[in-house]
């Protein structure tokens, strides 16, 4: 069996966290492919957390909401915690009016806070010291 066509959505790994995002242009089939690709990555790489940035999404309809909920449930069954980050305020307002609460889906205001919730912390610059980029 050949592998499914790639969705074109990059899934990056930072330690035991997978970082990815949803694009506005994702159609229904691409959303389903994305879900199976992500689950495959969780399983093969032993990821404990998944951050999904949705700041590019201009709308969330009931199909996308269902995709996010199922993806969260499936990831949890594989031992990974999902955080959906960066929902635009108009999208949040519309979702609430639609009656969709994304039950069971953890959210964060932005990717940075989502990563912090998954245990990634920005190391603070040492006070009074010039900060050097670590190269080589």
């Amino acid at each position, binding site marked *: 069996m050949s592998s499914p066509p790639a969705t074109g959505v990059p899934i990056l790994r930072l330690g035991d966290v997978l970082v990815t995002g949803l694009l506005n*242009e994702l*159609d*229904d*089939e691409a959303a389903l492919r994305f879900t199976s690709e992500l689950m495959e990555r969780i399983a093969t790489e032993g990821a404990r957390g998944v951050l999904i940035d949705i700041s590019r999404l*201009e*709308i*969330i*309809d*009931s*199909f996308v*909401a*269902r995709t996010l*909920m199922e993806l969260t449930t499936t990831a949890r069954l594989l031992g990974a915690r999902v955080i959906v980050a960066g929902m*635009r*305020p*108009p*999208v949040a*307002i*519309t979702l609430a*009016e*639609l*009656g*969709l609460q994304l039950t069971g889906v953890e959210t964060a205001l932005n990717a940075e806070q989502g990563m912090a919730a998954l245990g990634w912390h920005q190391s603070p610059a040492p006070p009074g010291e010039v900060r050097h980029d670590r190269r080589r």
Partner: protein
Amino acid sequence: MTGAGESGGTTVLGDAERRAANGEAAARPVTYAVRSEQDLLTVRHAVRAATRRAGFSIVDQTRVVTAASELARNAYVHGGGGALTIDYPTRRDAVGLRLTVTDDGPGIDDVPTALADGYTTGNGLGHGLGGARRLMDEFDIRTEVGGGTTVTATRWAVR
């Protein structure tokens, strides 16, 4: 690609059409096919552009595009495909955007149940029709078992 065949040649727009296309005069209704996944994306983009043309706020834009997505998906999934028409009704105090979504599907047997939250026969969350109704100011369903479904939904933006 289907449906694009006719547009292979150059379409010459008259002055009025060009103004309408730019939203400078009362724009004419435009109808889009809803027969594929790709059509659902096309419809979303078209409705988004229409809400901008009508001068809707970003939240109203999001409401209308989301409602259009729900209605178009209903027509595609349950109605076996159909069409979505965008037009711009006007009131003295408001500009409107009206979505008319038709399909030739089996029709809806029990409209109140279909509008109830949580009722689903497909792969959504059962919030499609009822949710779309809440996102729009006016909402009307005409359906007949075996005779297809037409949903008309309008959102007004007070000037």
